[in-house]
């Protein structure tokens, strides 16, 4: 029964016609088992954090067990209250939303220039962008923060959003994808008298849904996880994100398990988001990346 589904298998080295052989059946079963094991390894650490969150610090450091002795949701409620997570979820949502939009628009436009418009001398700019990949970002953080203060944007979401507009990796992803689009289509649009921006909005964007999705996913996860830069820009402004709070939380008088409970709350939103959009995400991550 299990193996019936293999008869219309569309990809991979095992083909539908192989499955009749018992040797292949064993192989397929082994692969299936391995995949289950892999998924277990992937999700186990997150499950462990949740289980550990039900322990108190004494049980956590002394009992050599994974399962907690009791499931007391009160502990999570206390951490939730102490943290005022609601407010920081909201801030994070704003930071992530703006960052994602900036990541798509700015990097997309630049890649459009590199891949399609190719104005005279664009290769210099392209080389500079590629070089940005090689620069360790941590060192320049002081200079960046100083620049931000200089133009008076400290304590605002704007520098957080715009930072995602200058990402060489996203530019590369966009560029590779745009170059794979049929050029006749763009030519035709141009002959119809479409302006440069109109071509981008009317032709490029609709065709680029898969890659936009990919960049959006990357940007959402990256923006959600980022902590040092947002901390330096937002701390004390009342606009702190969840990760900024988590980063600061570890230095306050709290025990290790409370920190783990806070970690649970920081994992939940992206997990929920991911669960809702999982089909779109995996499909487009696949489609968008075909070009590599």
């Amino acid at each position, binding site marked *: 029964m299990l193996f019936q589904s293999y008869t219309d298998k569309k990809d991979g080295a095992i083909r539908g016609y192989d499955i009749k052989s018992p040797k292949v059946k064993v192989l397929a079963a082994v692969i299936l088992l391995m995949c289950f094991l892999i998924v277990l390894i992937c999700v186990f650490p997150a499950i462990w954090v949740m289980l550990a969150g039900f322990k*108190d*610090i*004494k049980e*956590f*450091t*002394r009992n050599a067990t994974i399962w907690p002795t009791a499931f007391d949701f009160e502990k999570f409620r206390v951490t939730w209250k*102490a*943290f*005022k997570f609601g407010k920081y979820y909201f801030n994070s949502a704003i930071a992530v939303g703006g960052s994602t939009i900036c990541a798509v628009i700015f990097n997309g436009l630049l890649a459009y220039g590199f891949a399609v418009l190719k104005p005279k001398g664009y290769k210099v700019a392209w080389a500079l962008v590629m070089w940005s990949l090689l620069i360790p970002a941590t060192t320049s*953080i*002081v200079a960046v*923060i*100083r620049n*931000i*203060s*200089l133009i008076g944007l*400290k304590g605002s979401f704007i520098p957080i959003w715009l930072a995602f507009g200058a990402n060489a990796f996203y530019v590369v992803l966009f560029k590779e994808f745009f170059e794979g689009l049929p050029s006749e289509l763009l030519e035709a649009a141009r002959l119809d008298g479409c302006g440069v921006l109109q071509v981008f909005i009317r032709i490029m964007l609709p065709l680029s849904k898969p890659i936009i999705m990919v960049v959006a996913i990357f940007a959402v996860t990256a923006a959600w996880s980022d902590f*040092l830069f947002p*901390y*330096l820009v937002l*701390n*004390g402004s009342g606009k702190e994100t969840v990760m900024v*709070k988590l980063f*600061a*939380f570890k*230095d*306050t*008088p*709290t*025990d*290790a398990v409370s920190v783990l409970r806070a970690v649970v709350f920081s994992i939940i939103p992206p997990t929920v988001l991911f669960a809702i959009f999982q089909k779109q995400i995996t499909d487009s991550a696949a489609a968008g990346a075909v070009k590599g």
Partner: protein
Amino acid sequence: MKKKAVKRILGIVCCMTLTMSMLAGCGSTSETAATEATQETTTADETKTEASGEAEVQEPAEAEPVEVTLGIWPEDTLADDIAMHEGFVETMKTKNPNATYTPAYYKYATDTFMPMVESGNCPTVFESWFTEPQKLIASKAVANITSELDGKGWLNSMNPSIKELLSDKDGNIYGIPRDGYALGLMLNVELFEEAGLVDADGYPLYPKTMEELAQTAKTIKDKTGAAGFVLLAKDGAGGWHFSNIAWNFGATLCIDNGDGTFTSNLNSPEAIEAMEFVKSLKWDYDVLTADPTNEDWGTGFTQLGTGNAAMYIAANDAVNQPTQVNGLPVDKLAMCAIPEGPGGQYSLFGGTPYMFSKDATPEQINAALDYIEVMGKGPSVSEDAIAGMQADAENKSAAGVPVIPRFPCWTDQAILDAEAKIIEDYGNVDTKMFQPYFDATSSEGLRSEEPGLTQDMYSELTKVLQSVITDKNADVTALMNTANDNYQKLLDDANSAN
């Protein structure tokens, strides 16, 4: 229509190119100009404020409003502490109506501090760590508050050895102590009881010598299964603790040549003996926690507080760590001195400082000092200051933190008496549990950190600790020689730069 649009776009382009060329091309010049400009304005400010200070003498009624940002505000999750500080702000409203106090919680961290200073967002007053003052003074990131302290009459109340830690070479002072601390040995009394190591009155039989430390630790390990002693070997804190152990073996780790240069002395026979002792704790006595290379300052308290280990080198200003944070009952914590070794008994001491933004005006610094006075952290026995101390003690008591005397960072008799009174009224622990510790820290054995690139010295020592703990056959002498060479090399670099 179209032409207009093109023109507008061209206009925008011109603006953008201009900004871009400013950013990319002339960025450097324009920026230095900008910083120079701000510097000028700050110096202008200073002269102005000095002038206004003089003016104030003539017309005391005309005071300008002052805004103070409080980096010492408690963290969001500490509701009781916040309520207490809100009370302080209320007090200040009547006491100093010109000043507005704004919460700006900042937990000092080395990776966030400089970016904050460079962007001009340092709070007026913040709390730093004991390791930092000299570094912050050298990088001109904090304000000289000598004249303000003088104005308040606090200058001579400060414990002279702590004052030295907060001063530069010319005797200017850059901070005031929140707390002094001296390293001692924290004991988990529950484990001592379980191992039968208590006297008839229930007080722990604490180790008085290094030999006894090893024996006591062994007894605890055998009887209870918990580790006897927490040794730190993950980061610089390991070298920090070790330096105190080494002193007790008679070592001096860094020699001050008196001319601003230093000589490394990590491979003296005494220092090697101390390291051999630490090694024996792991391989002969086997009394340490599962992995010292994973233990840092915080996890050490977790081990002690949760009953995984019985003894830990720590200071009186951190009694909230095992108790409030890690759940040890308040009456099950005791402290004694770091055991005596062949070289004597020493306690490393220092202070947790309040420091002030380099951009703070004298008015702001004064207003901040007033606030600290109301918190009960200054050398003042005014009604407000006493109220502040009481609020603090009450708060600690409610949170299950031992209320014990702080290290005498202010030496006025009046303030010492006031503090003693607070302990008497609000004390929630049996002071005998802490007596051996306070006996030692009021003795001759107090010693401040080694001079000269201390953090680098700690790093080198920590590397040796990591080696002797992970390798049973480690050659201690060779490792200490290497550490000594490395440390000397760094000192030479610094010496030649001076």
